[in-house]
């Protein structure tokens, strides 16, 4: 078993990993930048090593320094958390080459899923549904019309060399498709010097639904149900829940089984999340995250499984003790991401927390590394805290969330707490009637 684990991360996830280790009797090493000498996980860890200046590129992203710290402390495992080096295949490979256990998947699987096109092709071949699209560039209008006929309107025309929305056109019928194919090609040519375009089915009101999986090195794969992360702003999730308000038991079982079979065939190990867009009863693969997710606590609350603990056990080569039939989704959980940002403009707001009062009581969990008197450094992301509530059903969970949000005080900096208070009161949110565009296009516009 692992004796000493180096946490190659910071903030709440570093503390989360430390907590799992402490309960498992594993010693922890906190590596930190100059800006994080006062951080909570650094204070609590058994050992601490300063690995560089505040800039992440010279500390948390500096592979050489992290490995040197593992060497001088004699750590036998490294947990990368999320972000930073968590999905860096080179890092994972180097860790293993130093005979240190990497708490994560095989480096090859990290690179496979890191490349979005290869990742999509791979999972499609393994039986996971993807957004229907033309195989490569569209040759002519005839091919485009045939595709639309087969898959239905609307369709999205995209430049193969594209990015940033350039050369992208939506068509709702044959006439529009004929017309906009030409426009898209011209835009693609003008922007990228290449007029190749491809077509895919355009989802107008999808939800973001993701499936959590857990795979050991002995061929056992489990799925732990879904999380609904449709409340997003600029692709940043702000509110996540499990189970999704719209997914049925049968749908959960069906997509879960597809994902489990695919991961078995792939030989994947560790924690993984398969992200989908979901519209009108259909799932469409977006990408796979080969690491622990920020929103993992909602799954923990409804399944009762400590995901970080399982992740470490798997890395140590242990066998999963649970079987799929043991996985039960109990009640409902919601997580609010509380960021150091203006709740109106979303401008980051680093600074000193003058007072921090976290809510408590039954079914309330706060994953946060801040404390009264802590100064949020300006160098890293703005996540201050994750408030997670759990209750028997969704209405009770929302009531508990409103109660917990009303107790929560963070002063000295601006946070998104007021936004969450409004969301928790909102009528659409009560009904679970939202999609990935709802927050920006409906809720924030109405503010």
């Amino acid at each position: 078993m692992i004796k000493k684990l180096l946490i190659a991360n910071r903030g709440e996830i570093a503390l989360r990993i430390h907590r799992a280790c402490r309960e498992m009797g594993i010693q922890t090493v906190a590596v930190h930048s100059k800006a994080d000498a006062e951080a909570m996980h650094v204070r609590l860890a058994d050992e601490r090593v300063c690995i560089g200046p505040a800039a992440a590129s010279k500390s948390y992203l500096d592979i050489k320094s992290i490995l040197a710290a593992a060497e001088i402390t004699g750590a036998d495992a490294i947990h990368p958390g999320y972000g930073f080096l968590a999905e860096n295949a080179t890092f994972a490979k180097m860790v293993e080459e130093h005979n240190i256990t990497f708490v994560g998947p095989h480096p090859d699987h990290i690179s496979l899923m890191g490349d979005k096109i290869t990742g999509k092709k791979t999972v499609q071949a393994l039986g996971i549904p993807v957004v229907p699209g033309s195989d490569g560039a569209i040759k002519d209008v005839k091919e485009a019309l045939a595709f639309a006929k087969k898959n239905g309107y609307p369709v999205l025309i995209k430049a193969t060399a594209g990015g940033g929305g350039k050369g992208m056109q939506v068509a709702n019928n044959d006439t529009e498709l004929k017309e906009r194919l030409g426009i898209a090609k011209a835009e693609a040519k003008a922007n990228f010097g290449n007029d190749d375009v491809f077509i895919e089915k355009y989802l107008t009101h999808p939800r973001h639904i993701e499936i959590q999986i857990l795979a050991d090195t002995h061929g056992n794969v489990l799925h732990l149900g879904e999380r609904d992360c449709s409340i997003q702003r600029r692709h940043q999730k702000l509110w996540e829940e499990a189970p999704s308000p719209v997914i049925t038991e049968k749908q959960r079982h069906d997509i879960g089984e597809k994902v489990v079979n695919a991961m078995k065939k792939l030989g994947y190990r560790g924690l993984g999340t398969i992200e989908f867009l979901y519209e009108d009863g259909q799932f469409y693969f977006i990408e796979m995250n080969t690491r622990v997710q920020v929103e993992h606590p909602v799954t923990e609350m409804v399944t009762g499984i400590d995901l970080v603990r399982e992740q470490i056990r798997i890395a140590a080569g242990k066998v999963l003790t649970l079987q799929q039939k043991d996985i039960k989704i109990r009640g409902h959980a919601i997580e609010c991401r509380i960021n150091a940002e203006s709740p109106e403009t979303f401008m980051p707001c680093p600074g000193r927390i003058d007072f921090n009062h976290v809510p408590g009581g039954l079914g309330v969990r706060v994953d946060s590394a801040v404390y009264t008197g802590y100064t949020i450094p300006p160098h890293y992301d703005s996540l201050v805290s994750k408030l997670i509530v759990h209750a028997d059903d969704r209405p009770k969970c929302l009531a508990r969330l409103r109660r917990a949000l009303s107790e929560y005080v963070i002063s000295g900096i601006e946070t998104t707490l007021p936004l969450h208070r409004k969301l928790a009161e909102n009528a659409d949110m009560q009904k679970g009637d939202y999609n990935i565009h709802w927050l920006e296009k409906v809720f924030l516009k109405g503010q």
Partner: protein
Amino acid sequence: MTNAETKKHTKEAPKNIGKESQTKADKVNIDAAAVKELADLFKETDLSEIEYETAGCRIRVARNFGIPAQQQFYPAMQGMQMPSFQSQGFQGQGAIVEGTTTDLPKAPIDPAKHPGAIKSPMVGTAYLSSQPGADPFIKVGGPIKEGDTVMIVEAMKVMNPIRAPKSGIVKEIFIQDGTPVEFDEVLLIIE
């Protein structure tokens, strides 16, 4: 909860309280002269805390003496600033262990603030000579020229020479041969 309620909470919450002196008085009406007088009284009496109250105004002046603090966590609700731990460096070959830090006061002169301090540019293992058994690069009291190698820090099997940024005399060496060093840890002082 409404915003107004939040603000109320905020107001009641303890304000930023400095470590060296703590005052609780009406925001504007701090009697600077009184504080000064109390501070002077400190020096004379060697007290660590004085509290003084008159109608509508209370002044508390406190200072911390060097009590080697065990690593201790004050409940956040107290509104106190947590003890600030100095980067503790490594103790010998072994790794540092919780509870080895001292809170206040700092050593008479903080070596990190010394203008002639040479700090480690990386985390790794420091060596004082080019190979085991060889003469060390530097000696306390010995002269040193700008650009001379003063130590080697090994990180991931790569030997990184640490060079003197200026000429002078080696005043103090803080590192033993073969010991781990952190980023920014003071290796030696040149004067």
